[in-house]
C-alpha cells in the first residue's frame, strides 16, 4: 500500500458517491461477472471436506505414513470430525487381499446403525462368504454429508490406496451450487422478469445442476479409464411409499396465478377428503400446470389418488416428480437422489470400467413392483438392515467377477445372513422415528417405527422415556439428569445422535411427544410425567414467557405436505399441535416470520388463571379492513386490525378458555395478495446482487409475543425501573 494523493482521494470520494445508489451491489456483481471472471472455468470446491494438497497424501481423514517401505494411512486430528467417517484408526498397507474402496454419503455410512453395523462391512462379509475365504477387504471411505465436489476429491486422492475396484454409493447430496462469479444469478434475474417466471428459474437450475453433475461424474469416470480401476456406481433410491416431500408454500407466480394455485390446492384436498378422486385429480393437474412442476403439491395429491386406485406405477411416477420438484428450493430439503442424477449416472454405464447399478430397478424387482417402503428404508433415503443387505448384494454381484472367478446372482447373495443385535435394530428405528418426526412426517409412520422398535427390543422403552424427558427440559439435553442414564446405554450411535447439536435451541414436537408417550408408557405414567415437566419448566407463573422462544413457536424444519386424508386418524394425547410456521432457519431476522396462514404457539399453564398476552406484529401487505384472528384452544379471543407497521396489542385471556398443561394459541393471518410485482422485482434484484433470495411468502411477522399472569404487568415494572434508573442517574 502507498500513501494516497489528495487527487486519488477526491476521485475515490466521487466514485463512492456514484456507487451510493441502491444498485451498488448489483453493479458490483455485474462488474464481477464482466471484468473479474475471477473463477471463470474454475470448478467449485467442497464446503464439507477439503483434502490436503500441501502436506502428505491424505485420503479423507487418513494421512499417508511410510515405514519400512510399507505405506499405511493413519487417522489424523487435522480437519474433519472423525464422527463423520468410519471408526477406523489405520488403513493398513495393501496386502494380497483384493482391496475394494467404498465411497459414499450417509446412506453408505449406514446412518442410524453405524458403527455397530454398516454397508462396507456387509459388502466385505458377503464377498468373503461368496468366495469362501478372507481374500477381500473393503476400505470404508463413506462420510456423512459428503457433497459431490468432496466426493470427487476423495475418489481422486483414494487412488493412493492401490485398490482393485471402487464402489461409489452416492447421489443424495448432489444439489445445485452457485459458482462465484458466474452468470447464473444474472440469468436467473432475467428469467424471473420474463414470462417464464419462477418455473423458468426452476428449469434453469435443473439444467445447471445437470451440467454440474455431469462434469464431476466425468471426472469420476476418468479414474476408471486412466487408473484402470473398475468403478461401480450405485444409484440411490428414495422411500417413495412413506416419505412425503415438503411443500414450503405456493411457488412464485403472480398474484392471480398464486390465488388460483391456492384455490386449486384447497379444492383438491377437499375433493380428496370427500373421496371424489376424479375432481381431485383434475385440480391437482391444474396445480402442476400452474407451477410447472416446481412444487410437490400437485404430484403428492396425484400420487395419493393413484395409490387409492391401486395404480402403483402411476403413483411412482408422481412421487418421483414430487421428489424432484424441490431441486430449486433454497430452503433445506431432505437429501435425495433426483431423476436427473440417475440419468447422468446411467449414461456412463457403457464407459470402459464403469458399471452402474440402479437401485430403483433393483428395489422394484425385489419388492415385486411395489413402492420402496419401510422394509428397505428408515427415513427418506437411509436404509434398513434389509435395504443395506440388498444394496450390498447387488454390488457384490458385480464385484465378484472383477476380483475372483466366482459368479453369483444378487438374489442368491441377498440371502446372506446379516447378524444385527435386536437392540441395535431397535435403537436405529427409534432414532429414525425421531428424525422423521422432526422432518414433519406422518404420525402413522412415527408411530409404526416406535412400535416396531419396541417389538424388536422391549427395553428400548426406557431410552424413549429418558429421551422424551430431556427433550421437554429447557437445559441442553446433555446436561439433564436423564442424559446421564442415556450415557449408561454406552451406545455411541444413540448418544451421538441424541447429543448433537448440544446447544441448539429445542423445539417442542407434539407429534413425537404424543407418540413417545403412547408407545413408551406402560408401568410408568409417562404422559403425566411429561406434563409435570412441561408445567414445571415452561408454565406462565411469576415471570413472563417469551412465546417466540423456539420451544414454543414450533419446529424450524420444513414440514411435509400432508393432505388431511393422509394424516393420522389418531387423536393427540395433548390438546396441542405445534406447526412449522416458525422463522426461516436461513433467515437471520430477529423476529418471527409466519410462512403459513396460521401460526401456532405453545402456552403452558400451571393452573387456569387469567393471563395477558402482549403481541407486536405486522404484515408485509394487507388490505384495508382485514383482520388477524387470535385463538386459544380453538376459541377466538381477539380480532386484531391488520397493519403494515409494528403494532403492539395487549390481550386478556380468561381462565375459562385455558387448561392446565399445554394450550395452543393460534394466530390466523389474512389471505395473501402475493406476490406483488414489486416483490418479484425484489427477488430479481437480489439475484442481480448475487444473493439467492428467500422465495417463500410471509403471511405476517411478530416482533415479540409474551405471556404473563394478569397482575404481573411487566410494562408497569419497566416504567418503575426506568424511573429508578433516571432518578439514580440524576
Amino acid at each position, binding site marked *: *500500500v*502507498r*500513501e*494516497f494523493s489528495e487527487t*486519488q*482521494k477526491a476521485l*475515490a*470520494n466521487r466514485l*463512492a*458517491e456514484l*456507487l*451510493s445508489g*441502491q444498485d*451498488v*451491489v448489483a453493479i*458490483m*456483481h455485474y462488474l*464481477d461477472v464482466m471484468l473479474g471472471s*475471477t473463477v471463470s472455468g474454475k470448478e467449485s470446491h467442497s464446503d464439507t471436506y477439503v483434502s490436503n494438497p500441501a502436506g502428505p497424501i491424505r485420503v479423507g481423514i487418513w494421512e499417508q505414513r511410510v515405514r519400512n517401505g510399507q505405506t499405511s494411512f493413519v487417522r489424523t486430528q487435522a480437519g474433519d470430525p472423525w464422527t463423520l467417517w468410519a471408526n477406523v484408526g489405520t488403513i493398513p498397507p495393501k496386502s494380497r487381499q483384493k482391496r475394494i474402496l467404498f465411497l459414499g454419503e450417509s446412506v453408505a455410512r449406514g446412518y442410524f446403525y453405524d458403527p455397530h453395523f454398516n454397508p462396507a462391512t456387509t459388502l466385505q462379509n458377503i464377498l468373503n462368504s461368496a468366495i469362501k475365504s478372507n481374500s477381500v477387504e473393503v476400505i470404508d471411505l463413506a462420510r456423512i454429508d459428503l457433497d459431490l465436489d468432496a466426493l470427487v476429491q476423495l475418489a481422486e486422492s483414494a487412488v493412493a490406496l492401490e485398490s482393485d475396484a471402487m464402489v461409489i454409493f452416492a447421489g443424495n447430496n448432489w444439489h445445485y451450487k452457485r459458482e462465484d*462469479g458466474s452468470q447464473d444469478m444474472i440469468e436467473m434475474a432475467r428469467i424471473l422478469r420474463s414470462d417464464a417466471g419462477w418455473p423458468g428459474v426452476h428449469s434453469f437450475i435443473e439444467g445447471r445442476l445437470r451440467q454440474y453433475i455431469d462434469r464431476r461424474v466425468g471426472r469420476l469416470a476418468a479414474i476408471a479409464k486412466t487408473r484402470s480401476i473398475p468403478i461401480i456406481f450405485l444409484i440411490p433410491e428414495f422411500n417413495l411409499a412413506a416419505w412425503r416431500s415438503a411443500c414450503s408454500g405456493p411457488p412464485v407466480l403472480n398474484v392471480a396465478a398464486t390465488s388460483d394455485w391456492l384455490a386449486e390446492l384447497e379444492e383438491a384436498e377437499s375433493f380428496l377428503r370427500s373421496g371424489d378422486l376424479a375432481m381431485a385429480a383434475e385440480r391437482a393437474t391444474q396445480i402442476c400446470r400452474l407451477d410447472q412442476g416446481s412444487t410437490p403439491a400437485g404430484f403428492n395429491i396425484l400420487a395419493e389418488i393413484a395409490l387409492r386406485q391401486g395404480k402403483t406405477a402411476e403413483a411412482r411416477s408422481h412421487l418421483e416428480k414430487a421428489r424432484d420438484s424441490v431441486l430449486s428450493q433454497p430452503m433445506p430439503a431432505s437429501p435425495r437422489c433426483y431423476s436427473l442424477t440417475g440419468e447422468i449416472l446411467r449414461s456412463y454405464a457403457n464407459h470402459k470400467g464403469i458399471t452402474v447399478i440402479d437401485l430403483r430397478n433393483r428395489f422394484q424387482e425385489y419388492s415385486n413392483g411395489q413402492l420402496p417402503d419401510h422394509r428397505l428404508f428408515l427415513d427418506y433415503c437411509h436404509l434398513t438392515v434389509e435395504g443395506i443387505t440388498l444394496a450390498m448384494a447387488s454390488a457384490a454381484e458385480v464385484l465378484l467377477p472383477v476380483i475372483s472367478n466366482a459368479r453369483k446372482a444378487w438374489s442368491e447373495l441377498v440371502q446372506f445372513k446379516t447378524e444385527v443385535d435386536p437392540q441395535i435394530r431397535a435403537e436405529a428405528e427409534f432414532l429414525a422415528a425421531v428424525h422423521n418426526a422432526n422432518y414433519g412426517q406422518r404420525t402413522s409412520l412415527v408411530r409404526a417405527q416406535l412400535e416396531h422398535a419396541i417389538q424388536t427390543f422391549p427395553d428400548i422403552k426406557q431410552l424413549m422415556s429418558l429421551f422424551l424427558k430431556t427433550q421437554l427440559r*429447557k*437445559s441442553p439435553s*446433555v*446436561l*439433564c*439428569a436423564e*442424559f*446421564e442414564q442415556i*450415557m449408561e446405554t454406552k451406545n455411541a450411535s444413540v448418544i451421538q445422535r441424541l*447429543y448433537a447439536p*448440544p*446447544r441448539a435451541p429445542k423445539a417442542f414436537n407434539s407429534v413425537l411427544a404424543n407418540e413417545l408417550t403412547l408407545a413408551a408408557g406402560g408401568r410408568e405414567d409417562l404422559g403425566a410425567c411429561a406434563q409435570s415437566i412441561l408445567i414445571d419448566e415452561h408454565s406462565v407463573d411469576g*415471570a413472563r414467557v417469551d412465546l417466540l422462544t423456539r420451544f414454543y413457536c414450533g419446529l424450524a424444519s420444513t414440514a411435509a405436505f400432508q393432505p388431511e386424508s393422509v394424516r393420522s386418524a389418531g387423536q393427540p394425547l395433548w390438546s396441542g399441535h405445534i406447526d412449522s410456521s416458525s422463522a426461516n432457519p436461513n433467515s*437471520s*431476522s*430477529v423476529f418471527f416470520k409466519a410462512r403459513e396462514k396460521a401460526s401456532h404457539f405453545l402456552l403452558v399453564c400451571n393452573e387456569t388463571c387469567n393471563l395477558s398476552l*402482549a403481541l*407486536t406484529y405486522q404484515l*408485509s401487505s394487507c388490505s384495508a379492513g382485514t383482520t388477524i384472528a387470535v385463538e386459544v384452544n380453538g376459541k377466538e379471543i381477539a380480532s386484531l386490525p391488520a397493519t*403494515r*407497521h*409494528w403494532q*403492539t396489542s395487549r390481550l386478556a385471556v380468561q381462565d375459562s378458555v385455558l387448561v392446565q398443561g399445554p394450550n395452543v394459541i393460534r394466530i390466523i393471518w389474512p389471505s395473501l395478495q402475493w406476490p406483488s410485482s414489486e416483490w418479484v422485482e*425484489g427477488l430479481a*434484484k*437480489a439475484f442481480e*446482487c*448475487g444473493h439467492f433470495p428467500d422465495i417463500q411468502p410471509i403471511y405476517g*411477522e411478530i*416482533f*415479540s409475543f409474551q405471556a404473563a399472569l394478569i397482575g404481573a404487568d411487566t410494562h408497569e*415494572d*419497566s*416504567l418503575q*425501573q*426506568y424511573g429508578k*434508573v*433516571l432518578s439514580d*442517574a*440524576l
Partner: protein
Amino acid sequence: VFLPHSIEDKPNRKDNRFGAAMNVMGISAYFHDSACCLLRDGVLIAAAQEERFTRRKHDPALPGHAFRYCLEQGGMTVTEVDCVAYYEDPKKKLARQLCMMTNGLPWNSTNREALDIHRPIREIATVLGYEGPVKIFDHHLSHAASAFFFSGFQESAILTVDGVGEWATTTYGRGDGKKIELFEQVDFPDSLGLLYSTLTNYLGFSVNDGEYKVMGLAPYGKPVFADQVRTLVQLGERGQYHLDLRHFDFLRTDRMYSEQLPELFGHPPRQHGSELLQFHKDLASSLQVVLEEILLSKVEYLRSVVPSNHLCMAGGVALNCVANSRILRDGPFSKLFVQPAAGDAGGALGAAAMAHVELTGQSLPHGAMAHAFWGPEFSGDQIYRFLKTTACSFTDYRGREEDLLDATVTRLAKREVIGWFQGRMEFGPRSLGARSILADPRDPTMRDRINASVKKREGFRPFAPAVLENRMDQHFDLDHPSPFMLETCNVCSKIDLPAITHVDRSARVQTVDSGTNRRFSSLLESFNCKTGCPILLNTSFNMRDEPIVCTPLDALVCFVRSELDALVLGDFMIDRADIAPSWPMLVAGMMEIPASAVSHHVYRLL
C-alpha cells in the same frame, strides 16, 4: 432493494408508554466486536457485545441478539425505539476501500460484498425489524463521543487512536458540554493501530486479538530494538505521523508486513505457537516504548491546542493500559478517562450519545460512567430452575450471603480457583467481578496454574488484581480509582503478590467499591478479614479463543471444560466433585465453540 415497505408509507412507530422518553439504540457492526446499547433520555440502560450471545469471538455480525437484549432490558419493544445510531459512515469508508482497490487490493466476492454500503441501513430494517430514522456518525466521532459523554468532564481534550475507521486512524478533538469538535486527523494508511497490529502479526500473534498479549509480553524484554521501530514511524507536524510503508503490506490476506520488516529486525517472523525467544520479548518491549513515546508527543501537541486538564481517550489503542498510565503519569493532563469498551464495541455507545444530543439538543444527563455492568443478569430463581434440572448437585445459599462469601473465601484461601458469576455482565473486554475467575494472588504457583490448566493459554500472560478501593494505596502506587482495569501501576504492597505482579513490578489494577459492585466488594472484604489481603486475582471468565461467559449455561460449560475448582453462580455454589461423571467428556471434549468470526492473519481493512 429489500426495504419491506414503500417510502411514502410512513410507519406510525411510537407509542407513548414511556411518555416523552427518548430511546436511542446505538449499533456498531460488520468489522469486529459488534455491539448494541440503549440510551433512554441519555441514560445508559443496557449495552452488550454480540459475541457474548453468539459465542463467536469478536463476532462482527449485526448485533441482533444484543439488540433484543437491550429492548428486553429496557422493557420495551421495537416500536418504542426513536432512533438507531450507527457508528461509522459506510460511504466515506467505501471511498477508502476503493482507493485501496486502485492500490491492488484483490477483487473477489468477499471484498465485493464488503462494498455494499447500504447493508447497515437495509439490515437494520430487515434483520432487526426497525423502520424508523437511522443516524450515521463517523467512526472516530463515535469513539470520541463514547469517551467524552461518559467521562463526567464538562470539557476535555479528546484523542482517538485505532487501526482505521473510514479514513481516519487518529483524531484530535475537544469536548465542551454537548459539543464535540474533531479538529485534526491522521489518515490511513498512517496508523498507530496498524503499526501495533503489524508487529503483533510479525510476532506470531493473532491480529485484533493478540495485541494485548504483545503488551503483556513487553515487560519480559528490553527496548533494544526501539531505534528500528522508530524508523517505522516518522513524526510529522502537529498531530501527524507517517508510517514507512516500505515495511508494511496491508493488501495481503496472509500477513500485514512486507519482506523488509524481517530484514529490518534481522529475524524471520515468528510462527504462531512457536517458542518465544528473547528477541520477541525485546521487540514487544521496543514497540511498547515507541508507542508510548509517540502518544506522549501527540498528547503534548493536543494539550497545546486544547488547554484542558482533562483527556478522554478511545479507540482500540486506548485499551493499551500501560500506555494510558504513562500518558497520565508523564503527560500534560491531570485526569484521564477511558471508557471500558474503548474499542469498536464502544462505538455503539458514542453513536447513540451523538444521536441523543442531536435529537434533544441536550447533553447526556449523568456523570462519569461508574461501572461497566450493562449486560444481562439472571435471577436466583432462573439459576435455580436451570441447575435443578441438570445432573449436578449444588449448594443453595439463597438468603445466606454471608455463608456464600465465607464458603467462597475459604476456598480461595485454600488456593482454589473459583468461577464467579454475579449480576449484570460487563460491557467491554475486561471482567470486573461479574463474570470473573478469581484466585488468591499470594500463591506463587497460581499464575502458571491458571494459564495452563484453567484458561489453557500462553504461560507468560499476566493476571490483574482487584483491590478494595479504600485500600488501594496501601498496595499499589495509585492515587485515584481505576474501576475499569485500564491503567497499570507499580505494586508497593507489603504482601507478596506474585500471581498479579508482572516482571516489571507493575499490575493492571481494578479498584472495587461497594457502591457499584456490592457483592464483589463484600467478597474482597471477607477475603481481607480471613487472610489480611484485600486483593484477589481477577481474570476474565472464559477460556482461550472463547468470549467471556454470558449466561449460567455458558458459565457451567466453561467450568466443566476448564479446571476451576468451584463455580459460584449467583447464590449457588457447585464443586468440581459435584458435576456429573460424563460431563467432562461430553462438554469438555465435544462442546463446540464456533470459530472466531474474524480473520486473525491481517487487519480486516474492508
